């Protein structure tokens, strides 16, 4: 305890030099926590968005369905089993029917996926409420990037052509009831959303669906041969890999920041020991063992990081909190490649992140503080007392 107090007093006594180090160390803290928080925030956001817009708590796929092979779509629709249907009625399961068709914006044909979803569903964030219509027309909703690539806007009518289950051509005007903004390209690009019942009628597929999205509190459903369970984790694996890769880039940045902090503490420690030999001699003369003196100096050095944590907290907490609340504007760069990325990221600072970072910086600081201090153990106390350099 005495050592701690002494160390603190010595440290504060050094004035500007200590504070410069402390500020540098606190920068390391904050930047590491901030960048890691940003990544964690991105991770959480991307997962949340994927879950909220598309994945739910996992899905059931009609056994022929393969999202990357449009050939399978003709055969991948199925009537829901009884138990599934009651789950759907209880809003625990959202059935989505997926079919192929063409739209004709500006007289140019464009193949699209037509997806039907119940307007009253609450599980997914899609603004499906817009899909309910009383006046007989067929409302549809589009994602923003689809709207941009087709030049359609709200209130427009667009011709949609499809072939029903018998192969009969049909076409109708779909009224664009709304355009939604989402970070999840896989519910946006190349597709039009209609009300499930409308699409089922259009396709002559009453009561059928292609995939079923599980709600958060969905009860376990009995296994059914026609429906394959897709766990949430599996559906999110792409995004996880990308974020892991981004994290790797950070490792080097964090490494450099730590080295910088080490440099600062190391230099200070070397000077302390050089200049305070007389003091060291005195300590030993007063009966402290050399190990205790080494301990004292190491504690002094390591205490930089404690002070840094406090100083960092002083300006870091308001700064990081503000960021976490207001978010950080981030460009949508990956949307072309099918990865969800929000325009605004909210960094997430978990307790383990903060504690972990503080611990790592402290440990590293302690090691670099200890390293030059070992020299003390080799000092001849009488010489040291006299201030002779060795």
């Amino acid at each position, binding site marked *: 305890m005495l050592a701690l107090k002494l160390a603190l007093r010595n440290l504060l006594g050094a004035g500007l030099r200590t504070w410069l180090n402390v500020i540098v160390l606190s920068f390391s803290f904050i930047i590491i926590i901030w960048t890691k928080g940003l990544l964690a925030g991105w991770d959480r956001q991307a997962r949340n968005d994927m879950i909220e817009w598309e994945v739910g708590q996992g899905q059931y796929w009609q056994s022929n369905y393969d999202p990357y092979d*449009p*050939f399978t779509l*003709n055969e991948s629709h199925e009537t829901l089993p009884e138990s599934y249907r009651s789950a759907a009625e209880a809003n625990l399961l959202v059935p989505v029917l997926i079919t*192929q068709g*063409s739209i*004709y914006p*500006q*007289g*140019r*044909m464009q*193949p699209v996926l037509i997806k039907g979803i119940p307007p009253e569903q609450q599980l997914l964030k899609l603004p499906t409420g817009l899909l309910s219509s009383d006046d007989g027309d067929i409302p549809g909703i589009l994602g923003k990037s689809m709207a941009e690539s087709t030049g359609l806007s709200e209130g427009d009518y667009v*011709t949609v*052509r499809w*072939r*029903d289950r*018998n*192969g*009969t*051509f*049909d*076409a*109708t*005007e779909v009224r664009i009831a709304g355009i939604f903004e989402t970070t999840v390209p896989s519910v946006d690009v190349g597709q039009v959303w209609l009300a499930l019942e409308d699409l089922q009628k259009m396709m002559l597929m009453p009561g059928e669906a292609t995939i079923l999205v599980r709600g958060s509190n969905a009860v376990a459903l009995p296994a059914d041969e026609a429906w394959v369970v897709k766990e949430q984790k599996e559906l999110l694996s792409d995004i996880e890999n990308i974020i892991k890769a981004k994290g790797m880039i950070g490792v080097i940045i964090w490494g450099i920041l730590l080295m910088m902090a080490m440099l600062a503490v190391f230099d200070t420690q070397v000077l302390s020991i050089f200049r305070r030999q007389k003091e060291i001699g005195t300590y030993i003369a007063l009966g402290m063992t050399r190990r205790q003196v080494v301990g004292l100096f190491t504690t002094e050095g390591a205490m930089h990081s404690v002070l840094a944590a406090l100083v960092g907290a002083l300006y870091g907490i308001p700064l990081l909190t503000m960021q976490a609340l207001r978010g950080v504007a981030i460009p949508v760069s990956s949307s072309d490649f099918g990865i969800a990325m929000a325009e605004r990221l909210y960094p997430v600072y978990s307790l383990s992140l903060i504690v972990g970072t503080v611990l790592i910086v402290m440990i590293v600081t302690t090691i670099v503080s200890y390293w030059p201090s070992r020299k003390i153990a080799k000092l001849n106390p009488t010489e040291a007392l006299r201030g002779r350099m060795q």
Partner: protein
Amino acid sequence: MKKLITILLLTCSLMTVSAQYPDGKQLLERIDRNMSSENRIFTSSMIIYGRRTTHTVKMKTWTAGEKKSFTEYLFPAREQGTKMLKLEEQLWIYSPSTDRIIQIAGHMLRQSVMGSDLSYEDLMEDNRLEGQYDAKVTGTEVIDGNQCWVVELKAVVPEIAYQGMKLWVDQERNIPLREEMYAKGGTLLKRTELSDVQRIGNRWYPRKILFRDMLRDGKGTEFLIEDIEFNVQIPEHIFSKASLKK
């Protein structure tokens, strides 16, 4: 009250007029007699008016009934020797450059044939009208100086590409001069204009057909029959995959 009487009178007069129209079913039979045949061999050119260029494809086709057809491309050089075999609902294509026979399935069937307004599916559709559609003559119109019956067709079988059609049938020659294909919901999808009608053997046949996909911008695709023979004996081996590679 006055209005009601007018409407009643009008309806009556319409009914009396319709009584003079030919029976739809018979009309379809007469059309089919001209347009369809047990089998045929013909050479045709397809002129495709694209957004950017116009190009021509020439081919020779053998068909037997509605289910079998074999086509060989003659022009341009690039397509020469490409062959297409249609049996029932299946389509195979052979290209000499790859020496491969590939079965076309799924959404590839919806691709247009050689960039035209016709898809492979269109080619594969059964084109006999009688038995597939209920026809009703609804009026008369003149097309290119020819008095035509306007005939509305409604599909009677479920598995059919176009549920509704409208034909303008030449009253004298019993051949449609214009056809319109409608979606189930009533949207006009395609229009074909048939012209240059000539006497071939004991039937009338159009030598020029213009296809237009009405949902798309563009001038459509012109189909010219250069040479046609009806009801000739076609050896069965033509309609086999083996003949694709020959």
